[in-house]
């Protein structure tokens, strides 16, 4: 019997050498270990074995059974593994074929720039406020120290809806609305659409601005410079050169225009910066005493600064866009680039 058991193991081991499928392994399992299998047959004869040998033989039988089962399992796993590997080898696709892309949407470049500007100033505690695009002359001009019949009005060609009603020429009207409604201190950012009757490659009858202003006690021109420096560095680069030039706006004094060093030619002079090495990007200044007067603030009670940024101008510089009309033409080939 011992010999039979050992021979069984030998037989299984031999038979496994020639099987190639899991199914065949299972057939072997049935044949040798099944209820009617060889092992069972052998064990049936256990009753003929002398009592004292039974424990030894019993142990051997169990051992052989486990070993055979192990052989079967091992072979089965081996076959399965080989099969999987074969399949994996066969499942080859051309990964260079184009992917299945969902349609990609895009933000308008003006939205991207506006969001970026807002994010910078929000970090400095400015809140976003909007104002009307059609406004009374008072808010757009008069209260901002643009007297009637003054050449300063020539700086902004104005669309009229009625004698006293204009399409705002700047978002500075929000200054007046805000100051009339609130008491300082406040830091406000006013993005929006503005209009001037002018149209060519660098002027659009409709364009966008972000106006910012801060009113408090003891606000200084140096602080205006600090805030605008942070802005320019955040929007362009931390080491961007800045230049503050005196300028004139009726509603600020001292007034300034701010240039950044041309990042295309690094100051050497190129077509974009008209050979000056500088790019004008915003206007700013200390809020004019006449403006405070027109909103009813007491003389000397507050000081403040204001600045205005042209969104299109920034977007044109950032993205290398050479014609302002592209923003409003809305060709999908343009929009998809952002």
């Amino acid at each position, binding site marked *: 019997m011992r010999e039979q058991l050992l021979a069984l193991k030998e037989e299984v081991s031999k038979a496994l050498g020639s099987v190639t499928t899991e199914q065949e392994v299972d057939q072997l399992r049935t044949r040798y270990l099944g209820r009617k299998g060889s092992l069972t047959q052998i064990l049936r004869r256990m009753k003929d074995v002398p009592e004292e040998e039974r424990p030894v033989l019993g142990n051997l039988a169990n051992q052989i059974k486990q070993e055979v089962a192990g052989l079967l399992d091992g072979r089965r796993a081996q076959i399965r593994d080989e099969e999987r590997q074969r399949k994996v080898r066969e499942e080859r696709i051309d990964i260079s074929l184009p992917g299945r892309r969902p349609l990609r949407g895009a933000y308008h470049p003006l939205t991207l720039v506006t969001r970026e500007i807002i994010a910078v100033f929000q970090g*400095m505690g400015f809140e976003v406020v909007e104002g009307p695009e*059609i406004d009374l002359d008072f808010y757009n001009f008069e209260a901002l120290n643009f007297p009637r019949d003054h050449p300063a009005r020539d700086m902004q060609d104005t*669309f009229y809806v009625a004698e006293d009603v204009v399409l705002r020429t700047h978002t500075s009207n929000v200054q007046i609305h805000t100051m009339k409604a609130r008491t300082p201190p406040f830091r406000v950012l006013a993005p929006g659409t503005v209009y001037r009757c002018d149209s060519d490659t660098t002027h659009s009858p409709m364009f966008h601005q972000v106006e910012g202003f801060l009113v408090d006690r003891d606000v200084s*021109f*140096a602080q205006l410079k600090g805030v605008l420096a942070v802005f320019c560095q955040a929007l362009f680069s931390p080491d961007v050169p800045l230049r503050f030039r*005196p*300028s004139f706006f009726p509603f600020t004094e001292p007034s300034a225009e701010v240039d950044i060093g041309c990042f295309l030619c690094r100051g050497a002079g190129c077509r974009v910066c008209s050979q000056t090495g500088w790019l004008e990007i915003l206007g700013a200044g200390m809020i004019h005493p006449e403006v405070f007067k027109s909103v009813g603030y007491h003389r000397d009670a507050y*000081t403040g600064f204001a600045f205005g940024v042209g969104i299109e101008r920034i977007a044109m510089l950032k993205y290398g866009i050479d014609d302002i009309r592209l923003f409003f033409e809305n060709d999908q*080939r343009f929009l998809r680039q952002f």
Partner: protein
Amino acid sequence: MQVTLGWLKRYVEIEESAQEIADLLTRQGLEVSECASVRPRLEGVITARVASLEAHPSSEGLWICRLDTGGEDRSVLCGAQNLAEGDCVPLAVPGTSLPGGKLIEAVTIHGVFSEGMLCSERELELSEDHAGIMKLPADTPPGLELEKALRLEDDVLDIEVTPNRPDCLSVIGVAREIAAKKRRELRFPKISLEERLPSSGEVSSIEILAPEACPRYVARVIEDVRVGPSPFWLRRLLGLVGLRPINNIVDVTNFVMLEWGQPLHAFDLDRLAESRIVVRKARDGERITTLDGEDRKLSGEDLLICDARRPVALAGVMGGLESEIHDGTTRVLLESAYFEPRGIRRTSKRLGISTEASYRFEREIDIEGCLRAADRAAGMITSLGEGRLLAGALDVYSMPYRPGKIRMMLSRINRLLGTSLEKEEVLGHLRGLEMRVEDDAGEVFEVTPPSFRPDLRMEMDIIEEVARLYGYDEIPPDMPKAPVSVVRPDSERRAEDLARDVLVGLGFCEVVNYSFTGPDLFEPLGFSTGDIRAKPVALQNPLSEAQGFLRTTLAGSLLETTAMNLRRRNRDLRLFELGRVFLHRGDEALPEERKMLAAVMVGGRYAEGWNQPDDSVDFFDLKGALETLLDAFRIESFEWKRPEQNSYLHPGCSGGILINTTKIGCAGRLHPSVQEAFGMEEEVYFFEIGLEALASHVDHPLRYRPFARRPPVERDLALVLDETVPYSRVIDRMREHADPRVTAIELFDLYEGPPVPEGKQSMAFRITYQDPSRNLTDEEINKIQEAFLSRLLPGLGASLR
């Protein structure tokens, strides 16, 4: 305002390059937009003196000139008729290439050996003058390079002068800025007058009937004038700064206007009736022919310079045609006046004439400088050798200038600028700008601005001057001291951002269209006359009729943008716009501005690709996008209503959207006739909703809702219904009658056709059952479903398939 570096050097020492000066001025608030160097290429052109002049023996009109060229003599054949012995002239020697490209060679013409060519100004590209050979000043030594002899090299700076700085509309004003910054002396031109009797008061007089409009009027009279061309240097200088030389009188008035900023006008005194000047307001409807030949109709606001009988000039704007200086003029009356700025501006605007004079008057000139400018011009005219200046000026100065004093405090200057300037430095800057400073040892001082600075009226004006001269770039940056409070953007702003994010995520591209609209864009939409959108707000001065109004809907421009893209073969469009529309609000001056969100879908449902189906979008793509958008705002209770009143949408494939019974917008397929009107062949799907409705939901608080973790059981259910029963009715009833353990009902198939009977449709639903606390058995589900069906089917007239 154009100036040349050479001209500036007449008044202030300049060792810097033109570019350095341009940079200095720019940093001081006089932005130099262009700095062009003028370097005539006149190598080989030298000065020569005509030693003798001999007519050619056989060819009539030709002259054989012997020229002294400073060493050797040369002979040149010349056809010009304006030469005389002793004249100084430019000679292009053989081998010279003239600016126009012409090469000069020594040649023998008509038997005469000619060693070069005498040139006209035009041949040297120095002016348009080609009347004869250019004449150089009589004292020009022969044999010099012409460039050096005439100092032709110069640099032209184009300065953008802001409206507050009329003083810098003059070369002296610009020079003053350089002198102040560099602490150099400003040298004024010397005025020397040789006056002769009779006095001007004996031949002419000034009468001012409108002193508010003309507080000062100065006139000088010059007799025995000979009108002719100006000397070369004057013509050249005017030409460089963009003025056309006219004649010696007018050129001098222009020169002095540019030098001092005071516009002058020269009248032919003999053409003034009774040789006198009357300044008065025009009568309504009165006419004058200005020197540009235009007949102008005037209003009572306009100011006129008249003689004893009629208007002779539109004051401060343009002279009259009939009193103009002409070649035969011998007696000149020079006007140097101050006109009230706003009046000049109104006249100039109303008549649409802007001149060098009106530009300066409307920005305000120096009332104290009128006499000086008149004297300067008179002196120049007589020193050019022309004319006799009559003694004394006529000067009616009815409202003399009274300087204002401004009280300053050093500490306030430093506090506002954020600087720590010393008083001496501040005063130095102010004095450099010709301000008078009264300083009493303390920190308070008084400043009297000069008369040519009308922009300096208050403390802040003076502070700006200090900052300007000190240099903005020198002021150290600082940060605001006030505590920062972080403010969340308001709900409208956040709603805009969220809407953009969702739509971009869904594959839409954002567009920005003009707020302007025109009949081409809104008429095809066919709003009924009662619709508020049918009457847009009109502009008084539009750029064109197509941009004559402000839009009342985003539809017109968004559809036009769509059509434009389709014409350019940009297919498969998903576009959206977020913008304001403008709606009349009864009699109120200002219209309502309403923010709208609109989107359009055309073409393929998927991006084109080898493995993508080529389905086209339909109504349900649009609806799905819109519902996803509403879902992002957590808006659950919205409904779609038909019919929709929007004329521009297809009545069968469109609807209105309501949130809690409030209509927020409409969506659907574009009406085929509108589609055609915009020139589109594709089906277009469009929605427009008010942003306000979304904004009111953006603050919807987010609360976690526990979900059942027991395994869900799904059962499919097909209902056969009358084909006219809308899905909404079925789903509403299903929701109404569903057991609480039904957690989802999904329509997964819609079918008409055999074996479903004619006139019927089949709707197949997948129903999900789930109990939060335990697993449901088949039997329980059967029971729930039976009860559900028995309540549902009769009301719908439906049967199970």
